[in-house]
């Protein structure tokens, strides 16, 4: 195992603005695991691997290169929880490493900011950081209480399937399993949460989210766990929107770091779980009662 003492935490857009509990829990958990997460000063939107990359590819790769270069300035690897940010940063990393002409052009632009993209450090997903760098054994040693009897549905998100060799889906499932909960595998695990449809057709997006949520309800899922803040946004807001239309959805959604922090013995208030818009407390109550709700 490679010992990583410090790592840059690329927060992306949603975590430091709308999902503070994800950022806070991540920092708490990593400190417990002996890893110091560093903020990247001046980091911007990744930018997103869909619209920005489609509409302005050169600006997209320059901004992504700048974000990586800012982390490189601190001489550390960088990790992110967001599947979209991960896709953008790894894509840009490979493009800038393989295309000399593009690399020169991007670096000419970055010189204006006094930074250079070198490609010396790795871009990791939080799954890779936890599973490959820190390791399951080290995580298991920190677990003080488990989510016994809690039925957890995993929202993997689209983009972590892009590189099947990295096996991020399997690794994420194992990371959830060690929390002692009951992982509910569903056929709908593979479908999109609806985020990309929000750009054009909100009704279509909500219908997609509903398809996913209905399968969770059908299989008595207690809560949803994920890393991707975009999926978080859609699955939580989707429930609130559906409830406004007469639905009765109440499946709390958690960033994986939150559940890990709870299992490490931290109280939900420590990482700001009270900012959730759905009833999250019932999950921890169920865990404390050994699965009886």
């Amino acid at each position, binding site marked *: 195992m490679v010992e990583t003492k410090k790592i840059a935490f690329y927060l992306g857009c949603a975590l430091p603005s709308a999902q503070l509990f994800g950022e806070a829990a991540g920092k708490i958990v990593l400190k417990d695991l002996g890893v110091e997460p560093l903020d990247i000063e001046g980091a911007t939107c990744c930018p997103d691997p869909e619209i920005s990359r*489609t509409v302005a590819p050169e600006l997209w790769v320059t901004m992504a290169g700048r974000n990586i270069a800012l982390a490189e300035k601190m001489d550390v690897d960088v990790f992110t929880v967001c599947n979209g940010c991960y896709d953008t940063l790894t894509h840009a990393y490979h493009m800038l490493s393989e295309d000399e002409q593009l690399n020169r052009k991007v670096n000419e632009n970055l010189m204006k900011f006094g930074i250079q993209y070198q490609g010396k450090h790795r871009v990791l997903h939080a799954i890779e950081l936890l599973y490959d760098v820190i390791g399951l054994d080290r995580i298991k040693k920190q677990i003080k209480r488990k989510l016994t009897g809690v039925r957890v549905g995993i929202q993997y998100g689209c983009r972590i399937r892009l590189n099947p060799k990295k096996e991020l889906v399997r690794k994420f499932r194992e990371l959830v399993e060690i929390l002692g909960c009951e992982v509910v595998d569903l056929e709908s695990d593979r479908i999109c949460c609806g985020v*990309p449809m929000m750009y054009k057709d909100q009704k279509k997006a909500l219908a997609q989210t509903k398809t996913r949520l209905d399968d969770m309800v059908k299989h008595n899922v207690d809560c949803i766990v994920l890393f991707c803040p975009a999926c978080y946004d859609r699955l939580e807001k989707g429930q609130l929107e559906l409830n406004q239309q007469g639905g009765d959805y109440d499946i709390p959604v958690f960033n994986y770091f939150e559940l890990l922090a709870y299992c490490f013995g931290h109280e939900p208030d420590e990482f700001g779980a009270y900012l959730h818009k759905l009833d999250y407390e019932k999950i921890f109550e169920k865990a404390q009662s050994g699965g009886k709700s």
Partner: protein
Amino acid sequence: MADTDDQKVLFYDPELCSGCSYCMLACSYEHFKVLDYELSNLWIYPDPQRPFYYIGIHCSHCDDPICKAACPVEAISKGEDGIVNIDQNKCIGCRSCNIMCPISVPWKNLERRVSFKCDFCKGDPKCAKFCPTGAISVKTRKEARELASKLILKAEAKSK
């Protein structure tokens, strides 16, 4: 013309598709500079027979394209690279190609009054480039045929 086995085609893998439909938006942006499902040259639909699966409909750039044969004004051609294109300057919007294609790939743009279809984005299809799961990819026709056969066998085994 490119050897038919070596011709580059799109390959859609329903096992990987999450139904996000971003391919359709990327396609519309490439061709019309707007993000609009109505202006896409390929379509992703929920599979009515398999819950949580999708069907991708896209041009196969057939060896002997029936859309080309059906066009009364020879607006459709098959290039040296095997790509089947519609020349919108020649198209009269009669919809013969739309009707004759077995999967109705060519579609009529009612605003412009002519038909459109996949033009393979000059060899770099944006649907494949932006697919977040790798469900749409560029393969040779031979590779695509082999992969499709495997998928069919897998689906048949599953249904037994």
